[in-house]
């Protein structure tokens, strides 16, 4: 019971800050300093959000599916790459610079090319999500593998463990915390990645919907979609947090200990 108290008090400042921002925004829009097509009021945005919810949800389904598949494939790819790069020094040297290069290519430029190559379906969108998400996860896993105490590996060897056993019992679980740090970054970019690729070519999805409302000058709806995207990104982050807590119960124990 007692332990929950600081949790509640720690939520006051962010909520207060948000409230101040929203209030300021509302005042600016109501006062008429800024015309409404430039900055719709929060109330108008919320009205648009709830009024448009069925349409938004319809489109969100596609965006979420793309983000989800993209993230899954990104994780799988990151896992394969990081593990190979950790295992073989040559792979590491060969792929690391290429991975950095992929991150400096503007996605906005390749998204239309991907659509050209892969058509109107989900494939190009998923690919773009994979490109934006696999890098932070790979880096997280690589750092995680490297953070494993070499003495722990020496100990495992002394116990007669095979390479696979060392991976299973020491390297992989040891890399989990950094893997999840990387995944959190990726998760917060996944939805945005899907939206960007939809924006640049597609038929369904929040990105497509946004281009439409933008063309119709419905900035309230546009902001409503932005807010919706922010919310699902935060929910995705929350989900990753929950999974990480379930997957790594020992960290919870350590944290509790430090709070005592």
């Amino acid at each position, binding site marked *: 019971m007692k332990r929950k108290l600081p949790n509640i008090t720690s939520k006051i400042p962010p909520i207060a800050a948000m409230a101040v921002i929203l209030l300021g925004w509302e005042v600016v829009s109501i006062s008429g300093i800024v*015309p409404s*097509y430039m900055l719709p009021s929060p109330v108008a945005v919320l009205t648009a959000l709830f009024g448009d919810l069925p*349409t938004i949800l319809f489109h969100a389904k596609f965006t979420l599916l793309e983000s989800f598949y993209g993230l899954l494939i990104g994780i799988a790819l990151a896992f394969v790459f990081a593990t190979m790069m950790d295992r073989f020094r040559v792979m590491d040297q060969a792929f690391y610079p290429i991975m950095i290069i992929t991150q400096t290519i503007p996605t906005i430029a390749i*998204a*239309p090319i991907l*659509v*050209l*190559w892969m*058509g*109107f379906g989900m494939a190009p969108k998923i690919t773009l999500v994979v490109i934006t998400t696999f890098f932070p996860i790979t880096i997280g896993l690589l750092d995680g593998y490297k953070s494993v105490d070499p003495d722990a590996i020496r100990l495992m060897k002394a116990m007669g463990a095979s390479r696979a056993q060392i991976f299973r019992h020491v390297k992989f679980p040891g890399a989990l915390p950094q893997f999840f740090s990387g995944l959190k970054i990726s998760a917060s970019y996944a939805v945005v990645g899907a939206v960007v690729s939809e924006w*640049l*070519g*597609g*038929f369904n999805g929040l990105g*497509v*919907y946004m*281009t*439409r*409302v*933008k*063309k*119709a*000058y419905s900035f309230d709806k546009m902001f409503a979609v932005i807010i919706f995207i922010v919310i699902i990104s935060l929910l995705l982050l929350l989900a990753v947090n929950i999974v990480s807590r379930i997957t790594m119960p020992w960290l919870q124990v350590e944290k509790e200990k430090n709070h005592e």
Partner: protein
Amino acid sequence: EDGAQEKITFCLDWTPNTNHTGLYVAQAKGYYEEAGLDVEIVQPPENGAALMCAAGQAQFAIEAQDTMAASLALDEPLGITAVAGIIQHNTSGILSRKGDGIDKPAGLTGKTYSTWDSPIELAVLENVVNGDGGDFSQVTLIPNDITDEPAALAANQTDAIWVFQGWGGINADVEGVDCDYFAFSDINPVFDYYTPVIIANNDYLAENPDQAKAFMEATAKGYEFAAENPDEAAQILIDGDNTGSLKDAEELVKKSQEFLSTKYIDDAESWGVIDADRWNAFYKWLYENQLCDKDLTGVGFSNEYLPQ
């Protein structure tokens, strides 16, 4: 009717609007289905309908004759052919606030114009402004990121914008913004080129000529219906647009449809026919003004897939 239907992807040039009504009518009235075709209408990636068509991701798409020139003039031209003109004449022109003096091209001198920054667009403008005794070098150019032209004019974001009379011009009436307008084709007949055209993938045409003809026949029926029944056709477009972007624009769509119903066929013998003289005249003008590296006379269009 039992899944044996041929699948066709049709890529629009923009969000659904009254240029597309015939397609939605053919879809809704079952003309495509009768022809044994399962047509899906999709939207393009940014400015990419021609590419998507050339890449075979769509069999048909919508392009405009002016932007198509660049793709035909490549060393390795895109494999696309215009198979129908959606609207017989160029109905585009310059929209401006009433009373600013931009009711004729020379009035642009000293004013601000929102441009897409395309060489052909600027050359056309230069031609009409200077031809009218104005000075194009004294026109201030700003980037065009405008989607609601009358509103932008009313808000003084710009002084003049290139619009299609059947949409932007009508929209000015609907929104109650008093505007001036002049059309390019009235000023220089060379500019009476084809604006929206239906293009098709060349490989597809070579391999499936009969299917292509069947598709075009059904499409033509759709546009003929739209020409005769503008009000019903407008409603079909609004209902058929699963993007929902037209739902709140019923008045604009209906008025636009009424305007366009007389423009689809206009003075041609039937819908879609491309007048070779006008087509070639414009491409010749492009070539002569170094807006195009190749002489495209006779290139890029065909009337043979239209119903005879």
